[in-house]
């Protein structure tokens, strides 16, 4: 499994039966492939769909049926369509159980930057702020470090903040942090990942859950 798949799979494992889930672009979209068989979740798309299904087969694309990333999708039995104001009313009104989001950075309070890069013209925000503000639970999925090796889990955000509302869970290819009122708590290390490695690659201050377990190799992993 690639790093991104490890993250997506762990995010999917955080879902519970009946959840209404909004998946962001990138790693979050991959989570759809790892939803456990014993639960049923419903995928919401902010462009006006509840009940998104798998990507259509070639030749079966409907040009009127796309997700928020403007990619062709299908719908499941029991799906519904609605207008954009209704869709964002669902988001802002607290009717989405879980949003899984990609980020540029997340800070030591769990706050997210995922919409704008400084120095570039600010020309797109889409639904990023709405989803972070309104979803009951926010799961951040991100590679632990950027291509240049810099930590993406930082003391202070270098990029403009998306919302004052922090994420609830942060999942990287190395570990999982929960977020509470004081900040980050490291709750899981993936198999083969050491606490030393996470400390080295994390700029943000974080607490460590009691009895945190390091497992040495993938084969011993519970995940």
């Amino acid at each position: 499994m690639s790093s991104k798949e490890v993250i997506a799979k762990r995010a999917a494992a955080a879902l519970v039966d009946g959840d209404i889930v909004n998946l962001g672009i990138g790693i979050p979209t991959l989570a759809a492939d790892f939803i456990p068989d014993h639960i049923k979740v419903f995928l919401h798309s902010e462009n006006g769909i509840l009940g998104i299904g798998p990507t259509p087969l070639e030749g079966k694309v409907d040009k009127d049926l796309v997700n928020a990333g403007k990619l062709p999708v299908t719908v499941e039995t029991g799906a519904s369509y609605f207008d954009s104001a209704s869709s964002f009313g669902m988001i802002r009104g607290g009717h989405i159980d879980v949003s899984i989001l990609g980020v540029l950075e997340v800070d030591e309070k769990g706050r997210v930057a995922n919409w704008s890069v400084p120095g570039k013209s600010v020309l797109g925000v889409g639904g990023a702020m709405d989803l972070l503000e309104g979803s009951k639970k926010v799961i951040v999925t991100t590679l632990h470090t950027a291509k240049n090796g810099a930590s993406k889990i930082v003391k202070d955000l270098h990029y403009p903040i998306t919302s004052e509302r922090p994420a609830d869970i942060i999942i990287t290819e190395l570990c999982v942090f929960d977020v509470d009122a004081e900040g980050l708590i490291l709750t899981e290390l993936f198999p083969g990942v050491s606490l030393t490695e996470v400390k080295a690659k994390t700029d943000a201050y974080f607490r460590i859950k009691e009895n945190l377990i390091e497992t040495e190799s993938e084969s011993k992993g519970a995940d």
Partner: protein
Amino acid sequence: MTKLITRGEAMNYIKDGCRMMVGGFGLVGCPLTLVETLLATSVTDLEIISNNLGEPGKGLGALVRQGRVRKGIGSYFTSNPDVAAAFNRGELDIELLPQGTLSEAIRAGGAGIPAFYTGVGAGTKIAEGKEERVFSDKRYILQEALRADVALIKARKADELGNLIYSKSARNFNPIMAAAANIVIAEVDEIVPAGGLCPENIVTPHLFVDFLVLKEGG
């Protein structure tokens, strides 16, 4: 009292300098026949309220490339490099709103609500210059409604009276824009007799719709 007009006649309602709403999420649900007809006119200096400004050279993107858009109000222009280029040259003004704030402001414009509060964007760059207010210990910002001189929308089917239904995720901004402009022109794939749409299933009642235009080849 027929509402059906030609695409050429529709252009009489779009004037230089006017403020226009255009439906669609990207090109999905965008009234492309009307936009293409507009491209063939000389109408310019437009202020356009639309989630995006089309794609590079396509849909509203063609108008941007021709320098005929004065201002864009929407949520996501990042996917069209022409927009960034025109903005950076100082030729295009941009007002960026979170997508939920954009859609709610359009709905408010149609529903006679002058302004509302939203928590989305509070404490961020989007809130700069906006009035802030606290309700129950949480920060919100004030957003005024959006209205336009003319709205160009896309529906799947109309009846002769102008009642509309949509197709899947091509519905998006179209029903709310249908309520929020002084003149509303709906491009449709098909027109059926009155009674051809079930009263329970009509999404946009005919009182919102001034004119119908048949989609080219539709």
